[in-house]
């Protein structure tokens, strides 16, 4: 068992931490009004690195979440547990923040706003609530924005390194891999780094790097901002941003001739057909699914069926036992053996 929390040396974390973390969180600073910038600026680099969410809700205190804890933020940028000292967010703050997030161009993000979230520079995602305007039963827009949740996107470059030997086969081969993980255990972060390494190549393994197609339905993997990936997803990676998975897989096969297709959270009936199509076309699949362990996933209707057909050659099970990204097991699905981990083999 090992976690990638401990081994994150490759990223420029350290140098950024020295510069007060400001550059790294630039996009988040730019996304909020000046008064709130000051508060965020007052947080310590350590706090900044732990924060997963900044929550701005009109009429409620400014709250930050991270590492399963929450805290209020005071007017001068200190974290506190005392409700009375917290800064209370005004409706102007949220309204203004929304405008700043989209470069004062709300009209240009209407499609995203309809989905309830927008992606800002840096690949951070912002959840938006407010008054929803519907037309013909469909969400038309959200107005009178009352709450924003800025979810900090963190790439952990190199977090997939220890898994790569189990995923690549020779110079150019890739095993069909399924990452099984409960929510908040870092499966998207892990998948993103695996994509990057497959695409850039892994010199240590003599793996040259292959064309990777990514269907990024929820803009989480590549974190595209105006079409350009904000996260490092590799030099041979083509990203279809906010595209439905099943359609996206078909489009990539036809258009970009990928060797590997990666998507997050497979689970719908139509995804199944698309994955089969990809495998028929000789394309390998790397994907993730919500689940606690192999037994749990086998019970799921769609992905269970897919697993039974022996499509996947490798499975990786994550947990949060030693922090996000704890690898519990790596399973060789061909002979149902656990390659690593001590959680017992697949029954």
């Amino acid at each position, binding site marked *: 068992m090992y976690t990638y929390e401990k081994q994150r040396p490759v990223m420029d974390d350290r140098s950024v931490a020295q510069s007060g973390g400001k550059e790294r969180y630039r996009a988040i600073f730019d996304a909020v009004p000046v008064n709130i910038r000051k508060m965020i600026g007052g947080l310590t680099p350590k706090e900044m690195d732990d924060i997963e969410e900044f929550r701005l809700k009109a009429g409620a205190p400014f709250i930050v979440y991270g590492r399963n804890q929450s805290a209020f933020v005071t007017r001068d940028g200190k974290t506190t547990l005392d409700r009375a000292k917290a800064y209370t967010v005004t409706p102007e703050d949220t309204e203004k923040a929304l405008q700043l997030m*989209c470069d*004062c161009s709300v009209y240009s993000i209407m499609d995203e706003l309809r989905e309830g979230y927008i992606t800002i520079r840096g690949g951070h995602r912002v959840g938006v609530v407010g008054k929803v305007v519907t037309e013909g039963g469909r969400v038309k827009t959200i107005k009178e924005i009352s709450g924003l949740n800025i979810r900090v996107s963190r790439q952990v470059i190199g977090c997939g390194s220890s898994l790569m030997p189990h995923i690549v086969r020779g110079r150019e081969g890739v095993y069909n891999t399924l990452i099984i993980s409960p929510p908040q255990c870092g499966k998207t972060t892990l998948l993103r780094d695996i994509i990057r390494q497959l695409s850039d190549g892994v010199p240590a393994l003599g793996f040259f790097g292959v064309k990777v197609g990514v269907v990024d339905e929820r803009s989480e993997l590549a974190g595209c901002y105006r079409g350009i990936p904000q996260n490092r997803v590799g030099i041979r990676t083509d990203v279809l941003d906010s595209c439905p998975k099943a359609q996206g897989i078909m489009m990539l096969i036809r258009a970009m001739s990928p060797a590997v297709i990666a998507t997050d959270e497979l689970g719908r009936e139509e995804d199944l057909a698309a994955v089969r199509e990809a495998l028929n076309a000789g394309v390998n699949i790397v994907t993730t699914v919500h689940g606690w362990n192999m037994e749990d996933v086998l019970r799921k209707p769609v992905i269970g069926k897919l697993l039974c057909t022996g499509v996947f050659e490798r499975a990786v099970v994550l947990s949060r036992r030693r922090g996000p990204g704890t690898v519990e097991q790596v399973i060789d699905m061909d002979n149902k053996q656990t390659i690593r981990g001590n959680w017992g083999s697949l029954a």
Partner: protein
Amino acid sequence: MMIKLIGCLIIMACSTSGGYLLAAGYTRRVRELRIFQHALQALESEILFTSTPLPQAVSRMTRRLERPVNRVFDLFGHILEQRDGHTADEAWNMAIDRTRDLLCLDYEDIDIVRGFGKNLGSTDKENQEKTFRLVKYQLEEQLKKAEEMRRKNEKLCKNLGFLLGAALVILLV
């Protein structure tokens, strides 16, 4: 005698050119209002048809604009690109405050132009279109007034300048 003649000529030249300058103000106002109209038209199509984000849209259309109105939009785009935490409305007002001395517009014109920033970029396309339509209509009205003013006053100013000079010369001689 020679000196007197030169003095007279100087007086005449000054007052006449003063009159022409005054008259030119009316022409410039009309011209600037027209440029503003074109600018809004250009910005509107960037926003409505291509959904270009405001900073890019502004910098793209500013290149095609004539002076002195281009200075307003230039500054506006610049402020937006700084990402200093100003909304489009604030940035627009700042841009106008800093450039209004270059413009020949009167208070009413400036008010209308200012009002344009109010909803800019903060709503969906439908409402953006409404904002543009309103401001373009208001500018059209101002333009009519400005034309009227020019027609009435341009000749008057020019003639008055000349005549004032002449009167002064006669009095002094």
